[in-house]
């Protein structure tokens, strides 16, 4: 006798101790999103001053074709595509974690001030020590984590009710934004310019040196999320219900917060504050997959797809002028944000 879940479900039991249940629709959506992201990636690899057809790109990736083609595709353009995919996935995951924890579609790391805090960290580091890649990354990481800790402590009152966290986050974010402004008008022109550039959120100029640390960290955090299993969905049912099912609520929530902040910080450290991907990806993914609550994997796939397409647009829309991808996500995401606010206000 099998259970009717009200949707197409695939049950796998290859072995006595191994079993799983897979909803067909989310799996297909994830697959489609990844294919779209990869296809855009192939287009991006071929586009630019040195133009290649998709088949030439695939050839170069497989190690065939001319040396020039391989140089352009693998050495110059591939790191950026990989980073767009991985950073997009990281942002999607971070957004999913925070939205599930706060139980609110506005509860995303860019709205609650972690991006702004990371920017503050970068400005402080730029002023005090200069702007090497690892310095900037460390500054972003420290700034993001410190802001997260402050917001968490200010919002903390017997657990973290979602709405408090969001309100406190928005307030802290607004304060930090003015601090950032103050820094930019105070420091010398060159440092200010470098910081401004970083602050727009861009994948320009990233290479293989950045790929390894980002992929390794995001991969490790992703594995941690998998290790925590379905606990995030259980937390969505309320503290008591989750605790009754054997989730250690406080400890688990703290772990998710740390993972979410770390994902945001890694993405921000590499590419600067890229807004709206974390905000929009989980919600769009949920609408497409119709999963109960926020789901991690579809959010990651959607994030990767959104950032890949946004970055392609940023590079190609006004070519040869290259826009920072942050500008594209802000303009597209701004529309989404307005829609979301209107919809929330109507409830």
């Amino acid at each position, binding site marked *: 006798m099998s*259970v009717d879940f009200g949707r197409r479900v695939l049950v796998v*039991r290859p072995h006595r101790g191994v*079993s799983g249940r897979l909803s067909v629709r989310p799996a297909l959506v994830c697959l489609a999103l990844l294919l779209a992201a990869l296809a855009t990636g192939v287009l991006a690899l071929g586009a630019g001053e040195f133009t290649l057809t998709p088949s030439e790109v695939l050839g170069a990736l497989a190690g065939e074709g001319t040396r020039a083609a391989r140089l352009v595709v693998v050495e110059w353009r591939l790191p950026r595509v990989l980073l767009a995919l991985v950073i997009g996935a990281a942002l999607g995951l971070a957004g999913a974690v925070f939205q599930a924890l706060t139980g609110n579609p506005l509860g995303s790391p860019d709205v609650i001030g972690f991006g702004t805090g990371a920017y503050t960290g970068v400005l402080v580091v730029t002023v005090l020590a200069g702007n090497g890649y690892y310095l900037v990354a460390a500054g972003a990481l420290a700034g993001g984590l410190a802001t997260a800790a402050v917001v968490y402590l200010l919002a903390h009152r017997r657990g973290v009710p979602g709405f408090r966290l969001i309100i406190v986050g928005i307030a802290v974010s607004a304060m930090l934004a003015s601090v950032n402004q103050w820094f930019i008008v105070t420091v010398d022109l060159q440092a200010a310019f470098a910081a401004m550039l970083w602050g727009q959120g861009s994948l320009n100029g990233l290479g293989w040196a950045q790929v390894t640390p980002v992929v390794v960290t995001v991969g490790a955090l992703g594995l941690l999320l998998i290790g925590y*299993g*379905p606990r995030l969905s259980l937390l969505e049912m*309320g503290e*008591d219900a989750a605790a009754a*099912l*054997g*989730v250690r609520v406080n400890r688990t929530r703290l772990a998710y917060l740390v993972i979410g902040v770390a994902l945001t910080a890694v993405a921000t450290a590499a590419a600067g504050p890229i807004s709206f991907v974390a905000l929009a990806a989980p919600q769009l993914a949920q609408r497409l997959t119709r999963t109960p609550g926020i789901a991690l994997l579809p959010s990651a796939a959607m994030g990767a797809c959104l950032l890949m397409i946004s970055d392609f647009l940023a590079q190609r829309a006004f070519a040869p002028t290259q826009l920072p991808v942050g500008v594209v996500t802000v303009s597209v995401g701004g529309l989404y944000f307005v829609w979301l606010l209107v919809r929330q206000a109507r409830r």
Partner: protein
Amino acid sequence: MSLAARDITIGYDRKTISEHLDLVVPEGRITAIIGPNACGKSTLLRALSRLLKPSAGEVLLDGRDIHTRPAREVARRLGLLPQSSVAPDGITAAELVARGRFPHQRLIRQWSAEDEAAVVAAMAATGVTELSGELVDTLSGGQRQRVWVAMVLAQQTPIVLLDEPTTFLDIAHQIELLELCVRLNREQGTTMLAVLHDLNQAARYADHLVVMKAGAIVAQGDPRAVLTAELVADVFGLGCRIIDDPETHTPLVIPRSGVARRIG
């Protein structure tokens, strides 16, 4: 499978609700906690279900402090229907019930044949099998409550705690739910502990009554022995007569009327 509180002091922040409470939940029986609003009955239930850690004393599950045992191990022994639960947007009844299997699952064992059998049995017992594929948001209050109860049953615990399970249900669904508790208790020997508001339902369905007032347990035992007019006057401040329930021969509380004309 025993559950007991030993000399516990419980409260929120710095506000103490109960001090030095002792309670042994009778095994294999149905126990109801009754008492006026804010007497600490839900707080006691939260402490017994380890949602609230006592500031002194301990809650013992099978003779061991409930807070020192692994959370999922406890969740395989003790199930709880909390007062406030949120069904995620877009979840179907069967998916919600299946979440009750969490304490039995492992990372690589997410949906075993036992899980499936437990979900099927829980949904059959609560009569929600035909609602299986429906979205929980679209169900009526009574149906939704039965789905939540099914989730707790799917957990397959020998002890089940219910925090005001009949609130928001109409009278027919209230009785149906309580009869379901009795059936589970008789068929599977499940130990049940529920916070109830309705004295007559408590007297009718519970084997053991725990009466609370201002954070303390003032009486407990067989409803027939415990539930007297004096007790109701003392605990609830309500004048009443106790008559025999013609249906079950349990005490039936009839509030005295200050307005209506009394004959005889």
